[in-house]
């Protein structure tokens, strides 16, 4: 690549040069996206297609496949455990992403102030992201332990009865979402912060000249300016929430059942249970594809909403 740069700048024939230039304009975008698509073709496409094919078969690991068409999908429709997992994925996703992103936005705004020890604060809120899901979940199951966990001890001091953080549905979901929120808030805050710092100071100066308050500036300058980044975090969090797996798995003691009454079994766990524990690859693949379709649907809705908003805002 470096050679071609030199060739262009050293070339003296203008015709040659403009031809090259045109080729460069046409071809270079494809060259830039090529590494991603090559990598995806090598390691992503086959799994995707293979999974789709598996979902149309009855197949176990190491055995031959038997074509069943859309039977695996049809079965999911009447399956209470699938719907339960879908509901849990939805509620867990909601309570772990919405507060998380709002907090991250506020945190980023605060971190964008001129502060003493700003570097320390920024690193400190990002620190949870450094822990692996396993390590974080390990610590949180200790904290949330109904018998001797610190949180129930603390509640005890306040006169609150011990909360059953694993056997009751909502407490368990709250405990799990707190692991997610803890790990990812600082991460999203940092992403917002990077975007906020790219916002031109002129916009703020103009707003300040118009007499806008800090809050007003935040709402009418910061938020619209970093909209692509907000959109990015929403998409990524939605995907992360839909695929929520490690936290409920480890919270339930490495069991795919997600609690004694499946009170926090997510779609990913349900799929894992089917695919790895029971070995029903076909059905597990069908769940995977349903997850994919749900995500594409959510993505389309989000895109639609965003487009509408942009038109309204005149962006």
């Amino acid at each position, binding site marked *: 690549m470096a050679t*071609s*740069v030199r060739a262009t700048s050293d070339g003296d024939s203008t015709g040659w040069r403009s031809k090259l230039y045109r080729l*460069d304009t046409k071809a*270079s*975008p494809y060259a830039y996206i090529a*590494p*991603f698509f090559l*990598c*995806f073709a090598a*390691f*992503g496409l086959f*799994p*995707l297609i*293979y999974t789709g094919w598996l979902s149309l078969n009855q197949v176990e690991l190491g055995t031959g496949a038997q074509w069943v068409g859309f039977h695996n999908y049809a079965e999911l429709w009447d399956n209470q455990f699938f719907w339960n997992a879908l509901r849990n994925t939805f509620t867990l996703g909601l309570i772990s992403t919405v507060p998380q992103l709002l907090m991250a936005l*506020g945190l980023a705004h*605060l971190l*964008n*102030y001129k502060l003493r020890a700003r570097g*320390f*604060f*920024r690193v400190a809120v*990002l620190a*949870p992201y450094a*822990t*692996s*899901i*396993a*390590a974080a979940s*390990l*610590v949180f199951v*200790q904290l949330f332990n109904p*018998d*001797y966990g610190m949180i129930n*001890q603390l509640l005890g001091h306040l006169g609150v009865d011990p909360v059953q953080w694993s056997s009751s549905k909502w407490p368990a979901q709250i405990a799990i979402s707190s692991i997610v929120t*803890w790990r990812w808030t600082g991460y999203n805050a940092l*992403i917002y*912060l*990077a*975007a906020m*710092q*790219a916002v*031109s*100071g002129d916009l703020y100066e103009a707003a300040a000249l118009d007499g806008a308050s*800090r809050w007003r500036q935040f709402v009418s300058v910061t938020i619209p*300016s*970093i909209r*692509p980044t907000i959109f*990015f975090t929403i998409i*990524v969090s939605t*995907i992360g929430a*839909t*695929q929520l797996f490690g936290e409920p798995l480890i919270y339930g003691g490495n069991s795919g059942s997600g609690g004694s009454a499946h009170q926090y079994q997510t779609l*990913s766990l349900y*799929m*894992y249970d089917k*695919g790895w524990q029971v070995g029903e690859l076909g059905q597990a*693949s069908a769940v*995977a594809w349903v997850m994919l379709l749900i*995500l*594409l649907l959510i993505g389309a809705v989000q895109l639609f909403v965003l487009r509408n908003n942009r038109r309204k805002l005149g962006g």
Partner: protein
Amino acid sequence: MAQLTQPVAPAGSRPSTAARPARRRFRPRAGGAGKQQSGGPVAYLFLIVATLLSLFPLYWTVVAASHTDTDIVTPPTPLLPGSHLISNLRIVWDQVDMTTALVNSTIVAGCVAFSTVLFATLAGFAFAKLEFRGRNALLTVVVATMTIPPQLTVIPLYQIITDVGWVGHIQSVILPSLVAAFGVFFMRQFLSEALPVELVEAARVDGAHSMRIIWHVVFPVARPAMAVLGMLVFVQAWNDFFWPFIALNQQNPTVQVALAGLGSGDHTIDHAVVVTGALVATLPLLLVFAVLGRQIVGGITAGAVKN
């Protein structure tokens, strides 16, 4: 260089303060630094609470790692570090090949972060600022690939690495994640707002070759986002478990794989040892954060004022 950018930065369109001389518009992100307001006591209060909430579980990891398994499950739960850290560490190193694991993880996470940042910036730039046929469709494909659940793709992926003979070797963990859709999307979103299209057009008008634009226009603007992305991807690759556990083994593990070999002895799992292992696995990252993170987060704004 100078001619390349001057047309988009007409001097004096707005009075600039002493702290940010004319260079400000050279890199658009520079503007952020100047407008920063000082935080009041409320801001500090919130940040201190956020810091405490963030750090407490980490602190507790240290506490747990310095006690015995028995101590940490017996109420009242210890709140101060104990005296067993060294002996727990010794057990960790006795039970698994932690040194190899740390080296391997550094290589894996370093390579993955490096190549992801490089390729994602290129692709992100193309998707954000270049016109080409099928751009939107391809971008949709990129985002869609993020939705594939990783727990299931391991089966076909394992088939692939078996066929090429990488089982047990670290390239089986590196190569499939050389560039992530997440990274491409991240850079695309960042550049679409941070890189003014005039800057690219001006360079084009000047007849700059696209590689030149990358070096001289895109990279400087994208540097903070590249740093953030690099850090995020490094951590992600470092903490990845599900796939490496299947592709590697205890002779040639990454840190997370090595952790899976921890704690089993005498028919029971020693949780203090497991937590100590988790601490060992986390410390290098915190160190990277502390050193690099300060540089990065400081650099995002400070760099602008400096030049």
